[in-house]
């Protein structure tokens, strides 16, 4: 073998390694799908949820959580005093709504379904398209969305500040000074971090109570983590990879399709991709998918069993599953076993500080 040939051979391997490792997209201001959530390398095992941490520099307190809860349920944050956070993220409806998509002030309909607030604390990014990187950032959005609460931050702050009870509570939590949007968002986020579902039949089962799941539910768990391919995306304690996938959901308006994550990243791979929602409490909040197009768990599983919908950007994880009727029934049973049994999560609407209204 000549010297030149040796050099060629010796240079091929570093070149290949470099090429393989350097598969990075071009210049993008916002990280594309494949670059978010790298701090949580997965898939990880399904299991009980860990405790929720407060964000650095924003310690939580029972008073802050109480304030956040009042704000969460208060429709006066909206322009016409009709829509609260809880209107679309209703605890009685699995912290979502009855869909298929959410309605805001004046009965306006949005294009997407309300993502559940329960366990949202575990999401690395918020909203279906991940445009908010924290619960605080998320909480600010709907207030000034013209379709949702239709308010302005300035008007909302004035409304809140004019309610003496809120003024006193904000002072107790945040000290002297004017109430800010950041404080409102911080309080709501603190409350939302308490909306976690740590107790379900599944959690009891994996903690050692082997009788917690029925034989059918155990079979469903087996399929969920195997033949059903569910844990390919719905992995980890929150049953969500926090990433974005195109399932081929048919566009309701083909001329103006919802581009999903692409709107944020401009990465063609994110076209039509939406965030994986948690499966915990999923049985409590039909309909399903980002546009609420699947009415029941059964029809949702049929959708996946077909390998999803048609889309040129369909996620490679989507393949037909070949599930039998019995296997689908077992899957539904298991998903219902993920319903929360936490008494504190079965919440009641708090008494707003109306009696202190000026």
């Amino acid at each position, binding site marked *: 073998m000549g010297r030149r040939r040796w050099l060629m051979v010796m240079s091929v*391997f570093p070149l*290949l*390694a470099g*090429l*393989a*490792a350097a*598969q990075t997209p071009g210049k993008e201001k916002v990280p594309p799908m*494949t670059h978010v*959530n*790298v701090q949580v*390398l*997965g*898939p*990880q*095992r*399904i299991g009980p949820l860990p405790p929720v941490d407060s964000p650095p520099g924003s310690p939580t307190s029972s008073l802050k959580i109480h304030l956040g809860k009042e704000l969460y349920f208060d429709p006066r944050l909206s322009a016409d005093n009709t829509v609260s956070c809880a209107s679309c993220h209703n605890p009685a409806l699995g912290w979502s709504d009855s869909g298929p998509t959410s309605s805001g002030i004046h009965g306006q309909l949005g294009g997407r379904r309300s993502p559940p607030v329960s366990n949202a604390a575990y999401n690395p990014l918020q909203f279906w398209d991940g445009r908010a990187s924290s619960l605080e950032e998320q909480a600010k959005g709907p207030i000034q969305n013209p379709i949702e609460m239709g308010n302005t931050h300035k008007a909302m702050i004035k409304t809140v500040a004019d309610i003496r009870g809120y003024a006193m509570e904000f002072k107790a939590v945040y000290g002297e000074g004017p109430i800010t949007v950041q404080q409102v968002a911080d309080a709501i986020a603190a409350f939302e971090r308490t909306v976690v579902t740590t107790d379900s039949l599944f959690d009891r089962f994996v903690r050692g109570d082997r009788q917690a799941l029925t034989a059918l539910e155990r*079979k469903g768990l*087996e*399929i969920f*983590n*195997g*033949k059903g*391919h569910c*844990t*390919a995306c719905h*992995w980890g304690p929150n049953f969500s990879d926090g*990433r974005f*996938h195109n399932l081929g959901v048919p566009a309701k308006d083909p001329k103006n399709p919802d581009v999903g994550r692409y709107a944020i990243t401009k990465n063609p791979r994110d076209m039509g991709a939406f965030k994986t929602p948690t499966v915990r409490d999923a049985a409590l909040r039909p309909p399903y998918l980002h546009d609420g197009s699947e009415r029941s768990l059964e029809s949702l599983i049929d959708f996946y069993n*077909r*390998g999803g919908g048609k889309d*040129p950007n369909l*996620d*490679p*994880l*989507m*393949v*037909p599953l*070949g599930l*039998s009727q*019995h*296997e689908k029934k*077992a899957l539904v049973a298991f998903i219902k076993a993920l319903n929360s049994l936490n008494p504190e999560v079965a919440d009641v609407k708090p008494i707003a500080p109306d009696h202190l209204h000026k």
Partner: protein
Amino acid sequence: MKKSLIIVFSMVFVLLVFSQTVSAIPAFARKYGFNCNMCHVAFPKLNDFGQRFRDNGYQIPGQAGLEKTVFETAVPIALRTTAGYSIYGNGEGTASGFHLYGLDLLAAGVLHKNISFLFVYTPGLDEPAGNYKGKIPSQLASLESANVVFSNLIQDKLNLRVGRFEPGFQRLSSKRLFYILQPFEINKFAGTRNSFEFFANQIGIEATGRFNPGFKYALGYINGSGANPDRNRFNDLYLVLSKTFGRGEGQSAGQRIGVFGYLGRQPTDFTGSIISPVGDSNGSQDRTFTRLGGDISLNWRTFNLQATAFRGLDDKAFNDIDSARDYVFYGGVVQLDWAALADNRLVASLMYNWVHPSDEDRVHRIEAYSALLRYYLGSWSAVNVALHAEFTHRTVGSGSLAKENLFTFLLDFGF
């Protein structure tokens, strides 16, 4: 015989009783916490997800760079072994006995984003290999696979596999199908003086990729001498093209059709040849041989019909029977699998093998009819155990046929 059966059933009973508490994990399942059926119709046969996982360099499809490397996980080692009881009979008598039919040690994982490896070692055993047909009743030690995969070099359109690997033309991989004792008969078939084995793992480099919708290719450049050092200055070349219609990869969904071609050269004279320090030689009088064929995989519900067939043509220099003519043969496999019960716990399969050499070599004509049943004791991410019953009726030659029957009942154990 009665005593033997009692022992077998006792082993099965013990496994059934204690199977729920088993806690060991095969390499990939251990990494992800998935059950076997995430990637397998039922192990070892890959489903569509598993095929995409393999194609993507043992990374979750579409998730390259977003999962742990081998440096962040437990040691990625797994083993597979099969042990059981066989009864063999031909026209002259019957023989039977317990055997450990083989042991594979596997390691695989991701080294870095889009760089992964596979390593399969079979240690030497004083027991027959699963597809034992030779004279020495032992599994010879072999480094079956040792390769590095560079994935997504140009998106999913170019991946490279370097080292010893299973070539892409082996669409019906005998290593990932259910049969353990009955090999693909065309596996080792060639002209009487040609040592090439079509289904052997090979050393070299292979490029693979896919183009939507459903079109895949594999292009390989290999020694063509299996596990042995190269024996001529020329390497062999193959090309595989396939197209899948519908969803999936044709493994468990979608309908796949493919064609392949293999062009090889083997020396016929080693007189005066040199041997390099690593064992390569430069034999002379190289002669060509080709394999041209196709394969198909059809799916309906949990039924899968797979078939592959090809025409082998070896230069007349390989033909001891009639040295004036090229040696031509036809062969193939048809296999029908059915996965039944919840989570594919039961697998039933029928398989037909044939090799039809040209008329002057009728003595090597082979027909084999096989059937099997496999029952999986569970679907865990920790371990998998299958009860496996396999029967083959095989005939060799034509006219005065040599007939033989082989029945095996064994445990297939993946750990």
